[in-house]
């Protein structure tokens, strides 16, 4: 079996697990929405909220990412599924890509909900001229986050104390995505008179990030989950 086919099978399996358990839909999405409401309580100013809406969307995404990643690997380690896959001779690169694809799909849904929440709660406006940039930002950032999430989730999987360790390891790594995606989204939404052309350089950063951690992850994932 080639890597690509393994990846699709693993991704399909993860999404099927999610479809049947609905943990992300029933727990993580409400959590993310709650975070958006809490931001409003903390900042307590409509103008400030509209100004910082893109950043808050991405910050809420990062927090939710932590929860989703923990869930994605709890499923694997619970019955030694990850070990079983390895014993079965499944290539780690394929597992990595598959889990990243499933994670990206779940993140994409989550980000759409968060953007919707920003429009409704924070009066952020999606403008037609920024749509292309917005979609590109979402694709690039989501890919990068999914790769990093899978990589560090695999690192922490099966080790005791992983619940507390994952945020410490992962948040510093995803900081460039927070900065890049926030700036690009601001440009797409026209926050503070930014124009879409301001956002494109950040897409470069996000793409570079996704490529670095995609390639790095596919190569390193095997040694990380090796028990």
């Amino acid at each position: 079996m080639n890597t690509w086919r393994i990846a699709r099978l693993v991704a399909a399996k993860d999404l099927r697990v999610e479809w049947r358990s609905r943990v992300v839909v029933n727990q993580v999405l409400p959590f993310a929405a709650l975070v958006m409401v809490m931001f409003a309580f903390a900042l307590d100013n409509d103008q400030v909220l509209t100004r910082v809406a893109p950043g808050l969307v991405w910050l809420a995404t990062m927090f939710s990412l932590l929860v989703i990643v923990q869930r994605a690997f709890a499923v694997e380690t619970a019955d030694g599924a990850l070990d079983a896959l390895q014993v079965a001779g499944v290539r780690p690169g394929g597992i990595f890509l598959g889990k990243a694809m499933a994670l990206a799909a779940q993140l994409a849904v989550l980000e759409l909900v968060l953007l919707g929440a920003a429009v409704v709660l924070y009066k952020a406006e999606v403008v037609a001229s920024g749509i292309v940039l917005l979609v590109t930002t979402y694709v690039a950032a989501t890919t990068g986050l999914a790769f990093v999430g899978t990589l560090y989730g695999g690192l922490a999987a099966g080790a005791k104390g992983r619940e507390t360790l994952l945020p410490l390891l992962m948040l510093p790594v995803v900081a460039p995505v927070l900065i890049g995606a926030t700036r690009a989204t601001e440009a797409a939404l026209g926050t503070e008179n930014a124009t879409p052309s301001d956002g494109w350089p950040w897409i470069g950063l996000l793409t570079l990030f996704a490529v670095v951690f995609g390639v790095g992850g596919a190569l390193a994932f095997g040694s990380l989950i090796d028990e």
Partner: protein
Amino acid sequence: MTGSMTSTRNPAEEMQTDPTRDRAPTSTTFSRTLGLAALAGSGWLIVFGLFLSPNDRVQKTGVRIMYVHVPSAWLAYLAFIVTGLSSIAYLWKRTRSLTWDRIAGASAEVGVLFMGITLVSGSLWGRITWGTYWTWDARLTTTAFLFVTYVGYLAVRDLGGSQQQRAKRSAVLAVLAMLEVPLVHFSVTWWRPLHQNETVSDGKLSGLMLFTLFVGIIAFTLLYVWLVLHRQRVLALLDQVDDQGLDVAIAERRDEAIAAQEVPS
């Protein structure tokens, strides 16, 4: 760490031949000489840094923080580079050895310590010269991220599992950190492009100041090598304790059982 032993043999060998010894020194003649040199260097730095070097015209005596701040920053970067290179050496199959892993771990520990000193001394210095403890300058932000990243690295080293597992996991993480740091640096540089270039090294340093700084870098580098050497040996001993732990525990339980039979209570 500098035990009273005068032997120059490898402490690891001693430990193996005599596992019951409760004090295994991690010092050798070389490391003891190095330790003395580091001590002398630190004394030299104190004399030059606190007494002989002149006050700055603007910063007055506050400029002396530089003699701790700059060398510790330099040393932290050196330490993280050593961690990265040792991790690569571990991952490369031909040079794979747990010694590389221990060097990487020891160096990261010392690096985190000195990066902490850099951040604290830097913010105090910033308070004196810029009037603020922190600015969102690219260099400062990258340094803070570097600190957090290696704190995470040290936490991963403590995750448990076999020594090989620990070594592999942390080596991969160290290599990932080397990928991450430039990305963080680029992004924060873009994020705040108008960062302050306000460091003392604007070419305004007097000869004696520059010399003192040089002394500081030498003293701190000696200290770094000394600390890493010892820490690496301690880690090797810890690994040995780990290896012998089960045997020792079985022997102890057996002795307890025998003792209990002899003295029935």
